[in-house]
């Protein structure tokens, strides 16, 4: 199935300036699979979202539709065809 990952301005430099990144994943894919796919195609982008152990960075939020995956099943959150995934910086990360 195809999903679309929307990117905030600061991350678009890693995909040639694009606002969104369409990805083809298996029908049973979860968020972890999508980010793994991002890591294969755009490794510099992926490591802005996850640390070296695959955990979402503390001040990054990932939404499936309008739901934060922290309120769903986190990296195991299931997806459906055509779903829009949005990466956003958390307000807290700009503290310094």
């Amino acid at each position, binding site marked *: 199935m195809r999903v679309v990952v929307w990117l905030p301005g*600061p*991350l678009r430099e890693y995909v040639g300036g694009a606002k969104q990144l369409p990805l083809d994943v298996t029908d049973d894919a979860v968020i972890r699979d999508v980010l793994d796919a991002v890591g294969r195609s755009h490794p*510099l982008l992926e490591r*802005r979202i996850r*640390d*070296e*152990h695959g955990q979402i960075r503390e*001040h990054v939020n990932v939404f499936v539709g309008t739901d934060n995956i922290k309120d769903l099943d986190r990296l195991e959150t299931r997806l459906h065809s055509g779903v829009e995934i949005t990466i956003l910086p958390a307000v807290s990360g700009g*503290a310094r």
Partner: protein
Amino acid sequence: MTEYLLAIGTRKGLFLGHSTDRVSWEVERADLGMNSVSAVCIDTRRGRQRVLAGATSGHWGPSVLYSDDLGKTWQEPDRAPVSFPEGSDAALTRVWQLQPGGPAEPEVMWAGTEPSALFRSEDGGVTYELVRGLWEHPHRPTWQPGGGGQCLHTVLPHPRDGSRMTVAMSTGGVYQTTDGGQSWAPSNGGIVALHNPDPYPEYGQCVHKISRHPDEPDRMFLQNHGGVFRSDDGGGSWSPIGGDLPADFGFPIVAHPRRPGSVFVFPLLGDFDRTPPESRCRVFRTDNAGETWQPLEKGLPQDGFQAAVMRDAMSADDGDPTGLYLGTRSGAVFASGDEGDSWHAVALYLPDVLSIRAAVVG
């Protein structure tokens, strides 16, 4: 005409200064965004001029970037330059130190990190591998973070013997290897630990910075969290040399790169004040390995100055005479082209300065 490059790492980005006389500077912001730059390095070995930056985004995490065109463009590899391997119990928070290897290892670059760990690069600082000997040291679980975090901030390769190295961390103190990093031993004899019931523990000191002259590798100078110290036996023992300093707290300590026995510090009132004595911005220099200290203040603010200088925000260049540089937490940067005797403002309103390095580049 000599050209100097000054790399200024701040809480919000990297700034680069260019000068031919170390008095007038053109300062520009490098294209590193709002990353805090805790570590900078200008590596002029191999006839190459590589600028490296340990940059951390509050949102997007840490990385090490490098530029081979004096900061015009920046690169980083596809794989994370510095990362903890699978199975380790830590993730990289930030890079605190980028240090070229010794003369016999022109492609080696070292990185000191938070959490406290040492990484080695064999490709000029592009990618790094964890030094497991230190990471797996039995003391590691008991190291405690200082106010800035649990960081390994000082990396001193031995200038003549590639198997020897000294590192320092806050807290944890000084550790040394004599077998190329496979095993490490604490080397804190004589360094006080003011925050510990036993003031002279084997390890756990809050060492802030160490420096030494390459021609005298067994003589090292140390700014501690309380006290300035010297070792004449390669770190085997340390003795206080704070003597006539107005305060013995501080963060940076810089050995004169060409004149053994000359050292610079920036004293702060400690421990619960951390502002300069008498509210004056003063560097202190010893020319006799710490027996006496003299203030260097010409051209520096001498009235109402309250800012601190962080451990990597004071350094020397490789010019002749030696140039000195300091950056403050209030965003001011000062340069001296005459070994600290007089100073000129490079910039006054930058973000707070975390790291500073300078070199002759032309």
